[in-house]
């Protein structure tokens, strides 16, 4: 049985965690993602940048009062990629169960 390749962009702990969170929440502020994933701000920024460059998420920089606020939102491309990743994952898990 041929395995479907796993999207290398999603096959990384932090990026997968961010995408899973955004699949559930659609849109989230940077501090919330940081709190939920337990990542450092620097590492998270780098991974968000990678996901954004691939068009999987959209990053909006805005202000909340006087404080800057970064909002991440999953795109249609990101949702599609995530679905494909989960589908591919199923193949690996089914083989593992046999």
């Amino acid at each position, binding site marked *: 049985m041929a395995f479907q390749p*796993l999207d*290398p962009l999603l*096959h*990384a*702990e*932090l*990026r*997968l*965690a961010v995408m*899973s*969170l955004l*699949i*559930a*929440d*659609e*849109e*989230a*502020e940077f*501090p*919330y993602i940081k*709190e*939920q*994933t*337990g*990542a450092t701000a620097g*590492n998270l920024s780098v*991974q968000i940048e990678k996901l954004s460059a691939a068009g999987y998420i959209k990053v909006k920089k805005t202000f909340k009062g006087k404080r800057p606020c970064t909002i991440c939102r999953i795109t249609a491309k990101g949702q599609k990629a995530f679905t494909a*990743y*989960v589908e591919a*994952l199923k193949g*690996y*898990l089914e083989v*593992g169960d046999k």
Partner: protein
Amino acid sequence: MEENMELTAERSLEIITEQIEKSRRSVSKDTGQWLFVTGLIAMIMSVIVASANLLSWTPLFHLLWFALPVVIWLVMKYVNRNRVPVPESLVGTLVKKTWYTILAFALVYSVIATVWNIVLQHYESPEVFLHAGMHITPTILTLLAVAVSMTGLILKKSSLVWFGLLSFVILKCGLLSLILGRLLSPTVWAKLSFIRPCELIFLFALVGLMLPGWMLKKQK
């Protein structure tokens, strides 16, 4: 979390499940905070309204209930001032829409019932009013008990479902009325009928809002 290309399929699945569960949990905690604060304020308010009504011997201070949503909103704003906001999610939106629907029904019912009761009081005899008058507080509290149980179903928290049912049962039994009715003489208790909504609200706020809210808030 580090970048790890050696991720196994099991670990990937674990991460996805964990994050989705975390999202559900943060909605649960947020709902818990909201229920707890609402319950606490409603309890304090019922004591204030009942005391003011007793001291003045008029039911006029029931008008204070209209200030309840504003007080809750102000306190929630203060409590959440330093918290990271919980983002919109499917679960969160479902909970919100359930409450908005129930509150809309409660509001429409209370307006219709108030107008109906005023008209009835002015144009009909007290006997007719006694039988045909609409009961506002028990109906609204029943609707809220339904909302609590529905929230429990959405959040997959069976304790919340049971608290909703329990508050409904307590409401229907009139537990406090039963105790106070036995402690006080029937004449005094009958005269105190104008503070009974406060007693119902106090009990509901404790069992249907504050306790389940506290439980949700405290979950790890």
